[in-house]
């Protein structure tokens, strides 16, 4: 089944898994998603190849950014009434503390969704959901553009 067909289905854990499976880069990073208490939880399992600072050690900051962007995309897709694959307009990322080499989670909230543009806030955390290692804000375009 193609991604465009899949996004028509109401998002449960299985549909989210199928979505992520169809994006080679999401598969490469090993991103997982589950639905708990009506909310989508994303997970980036720790892997040696994701390390950016072997001395601390810590996950590569770019990987944390990529994880947050993918999480925001799929969260938005899961929340849309008429789903279209969102395209990133821009992405603003603040690093608050090192993301250690252990499983990392992301939780998102849609700050605003208009007809053609959405704003999604997303935070990465590890042991404590109230202690973010990085936060980001993503603007998405919900229609085709050049």
């Amino acid at each position: 089944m193609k991604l465009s067909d899949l996004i028509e289905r109401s998002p449960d854990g299985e549909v989210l898994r199928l979505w992520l499976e169809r994006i080679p880069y999401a598969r490469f990073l090993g991103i997982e998603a589950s639905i708990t208490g009506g909310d989508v939880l994303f997970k980036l399992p720790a892997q040696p190849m994701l390390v950016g600072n072997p001395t601390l050690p810590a996950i590569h900051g770019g990987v944390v950014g990529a994880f947050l962007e993918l999480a925001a995309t799929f969260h938005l897709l899961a929340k849309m009434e008429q789903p279209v694959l969102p395209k990133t307009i821009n992405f603003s990322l603040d690093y608050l503390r090192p993301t250690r080499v252990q499983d990392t989670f992301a939780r998102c909230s849609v700050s605003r969704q208009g007809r053609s543009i959405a704003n999604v806030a997303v935070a990465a955390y590890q042991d404590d959901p109230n202690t973010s290692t990085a936060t980001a804000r993503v603007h998405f375009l919900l229609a085709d553009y050049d």
Partner: protein
Amino acid sequence: MSGRDANRVRLLVDRMSDYIPHADELGICFAGVDGEKLTMRLPWREELVGNPTTGAVHGGAITVLMDQTLGIAGLCSEQVPPTITPTLDLRIDHLRVATTQSDIMATAWVYRATRKILFLEGIAWCDSPDEPIAKATGSFVVMQELDLEKLWQLVESGE
């Protein structure tokens, strides 16, 4: 920049790329230096694709390349002593869709250096730097206490 300085930058970039496992995994490598402007290359591979229909690299992989290139351009800059420069923040504008199955290049430079903070910007491009696919702006922290010589000593003593 003299030829010797360009060689110094190249050696530093290669050393950092070997040191950073994720950069090594992706094969992000030195592609050129022109004054304070550093260019790095992210080789195209199937696993980086974000849109299976077009074969274009995912925006997240461009974020990795930008973070890497801005960060390394910061620590290579002659405006600061060679120290570790962790990213404080990064903002990326996606300007165009990446060319199908194309390597991505990133060019970055320091536009203001203070004692504690480096301000950098950069572009990502496929066919020509005149047609950037993304633009990045970032600030990086100068960790004066973590100079690179100490880092290499730590790395060597740990091995």
